[in-house]
C-alpha cells in the first residue's frame, strides 16, 4: 500500500479502505482448529522454527470471538459438522477461513460413511492448501496469500453496496 505522507505537519493521506486493509492484513489472528494430522503441522508452523507470528499471526486466539482467520486443519467428520458451523458463526466479521490439507479440502483418502467430503459445503473457504499433510511452509504461504487477498479487498464499498441493496429491497 502507498501512504502519501506530508512531512512536518504530521499529515497522512491515503484511502480509508487502504488504511483498513493495512490494519486487517497485518494482524490476522488465527484460531487453530486442529483436528487431526494437519493440526500437528499447524503446531509446527506456529511454534519456534517456522514461527507464523512473523506475519502478524502473533496471538493465537483460542476463542472464536477474538480471531480473524479460522485455520481448519484436519479431517471434519459428520459428527463434527455442527460444531464447525457453530464456531464459524461465532466469529465476528471480518472473517476468513483457510482449509489445511486434503481432508479439509475434499475429504482426502477418507471417502467413507463418516467423513465430511470437504468443508466448502458448510462454510465459505478462502484458501485451500493441498497436501496430506502440507508442510509448515505451505501453511505460511497460504497465510501470505490470504494477506494479499485482504489487501485487495474493498470493505467500505462492499458495506455501501449492502446498504444500497437493503434500501432497494425495503422499497
Amino acid at each position, binding site marked *: 500500500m502507498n501512504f502519501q505522507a506530508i512531512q512536518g505537519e504530521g499529515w497522512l493521506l491515503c484511502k480509508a479502505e487502504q488504511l483498513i486493509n493495512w490494519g486487517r492484513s497485518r494482524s490476522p489472528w488465527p484460531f487453530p482448529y486442529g483436528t487431526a494430522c494437519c493440526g500437528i503441522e499447524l503446531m*509446527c508452523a506456529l511454534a519456534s*522454527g517456522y514461527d507464523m507470528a512473523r506475519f502478524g499471526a502473533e496471538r493465537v486466539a483460542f476463542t472464536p470471538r477474538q480471531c480473524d482467520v479460522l485455520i481448519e486443519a484436519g479431517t471434519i*467428520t459428520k459428527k463434527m459438522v455442527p*460444531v464447525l458451523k457453530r464456531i464459524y458463526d461465532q466469529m465476528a466479521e471480518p472473517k476468513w477461513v483457510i482449509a489445511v490439507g486434503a481432508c479439509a479440502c475434499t475429504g482426502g483418502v477418507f471417502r467413507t*460413511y463418516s*467423513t465430511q467430503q470437504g468443508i466448502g459445503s458448510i462454510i465459505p473457504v478462502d484458501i485451500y492448501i493441498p497436501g496430506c*499433510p502440507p*508442510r509448515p511452509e505451505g501453511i505460511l504461504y497460504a497465510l501470505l496469500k490470504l494477506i494479499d487477498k485482504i489487501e485487495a479487498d474493498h470493505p467500505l464499498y462492499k458495506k455501501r453496496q449492502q446498504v444500497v441493496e437493503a434500501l432497494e429491497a425495503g422499497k
Partner: protein
Amino acid sequence: MAKEIETVCVTTGPAEVGDYVALNIGPIHPAMHGTLRVITRTDGETIISAEPEIGYLHRGVEKLGENLTYRQFLPLTDRLNYCSAICNNVAYELAVEKALGIEVPEKAQLLRIIMMELARIADHQVLVGILGVDLGALTPFFYLIIQREEIYEIFEWHHGARLTNSMGTIGGVEAELPDRFHEKWPKMRDSIRKANDETDRLLTHNRIWMDRTIGVNAFCADDALNWGFTGPMLRACGVKRDLRKDEPYLMYDKFDFEVPTGKHGDVFDRYMIRMLEMEESIKIIDQAYAMYQDMPDDAPLMKKVPKIIKPPEGQIYHAIESPNGELGFFIKSDGTDKPYRIKIRPPCYMVYQAFGELVQGEMISDLIACLSSINVIAGELDR
C-alpha cells in the same frame, strides 16, 4: 442454571443433574488435543463425575481397510497416531508379515528399530512439551519442538515425508540409512540430550511443576490392569511391562536397555517415565546403529514378497510397544487380496475409557493435566 446447560450441551450425558453444575469441555478447546470432549459435573471446582465423548474424528479406517488391498492400507496407518506414524507402519507390516509367515532380513529390522525409536523420542517430546504448555510452562515446548524438527529431517532424508511417513513396506524397508545420517546422528544425540536436560532442569525440580503434578490422578496398579492400561501409563503405576522385553519382536531381545517404572501412577510419574524412556531410546539407537554398521553393504533389505499379497485363510493378532502402549493389529484373512477384517487396538483408547475414574474428585485444572499426560491421540482413538 445447571439444567439449562445440561439441555444445551449434553444430549448423551448422564441424565440426573442434582445440585451440580454441568461443564462441557470441548470438542474444540485449547486443552482438548484435537477433538476430545469431556462432560463433567462439578461441585465448585471439584469434579463429581466426568464422561468423555469420542467419535469426533471417526473416519472409518477399519471399514476402509476392508475395501483396500494389503499394500494400499499401509498409508492409512500413518493417520492413526500421527505423532509417531512409523510405529504404526511397522506394527501393521509386522502383522501382515506374521499372517504371511515371513521374517524380514536383519538389516531391515535394524533400520525399523532405529526409525521407530526416533519416532518414540519425537512422540515423547511432543507429549512433554504439550504437558508443559497445558500447565503453563511454555518454554520447554519451544526447546523440544526445534529438536523434533531435526528428527523430522532424518525421516525426510530416509523416506521423504515429515509426518505421515509410510516407512517401509511389507517385507522390508526400501532404502538404507542416508549418508548424511552418519554425520548427523552423533551431533543430534548430543542435542537431544541437551534439550532433554534443559527441559529437565526447567521442570522436574520446579516447585510449581511439582505441586501441579505430584499426587495428581494417582492410580493403583490393579485398577490399571483391570482397565486395560498399557505402556507408560501402566509403567507409571509400577507394573514393569514392556512388549519390547516381554514379547520381543524384531531384534529387541538383543539390546540392552532398561524399562523405567514409577510408583504412584500420578502425572509426575508419567512425565518422568517419558523423560527416562527418551534416554533409553537413544541407547537403543546407538546399539542398533553400531550393529547396522557392522552389516555388509550388500546385505538384503527386502524379503521377496509376491506383488499381490494373499495371506492364507486365518486370523492373527500382533502387538508392538508403541510410544503410548500396546498397539495391536488384528487381521482376519479370507485368502483374497483384501483383508476381511482389520481391527486396530489403539493404546490410548483403553486408557481414555477410564478417564472418568481417573479424574473423579480432582480439580478441573487437574483434569487438563491428566488429559495431557495420557497422550490421547484422536486419530487412533476414533480411527
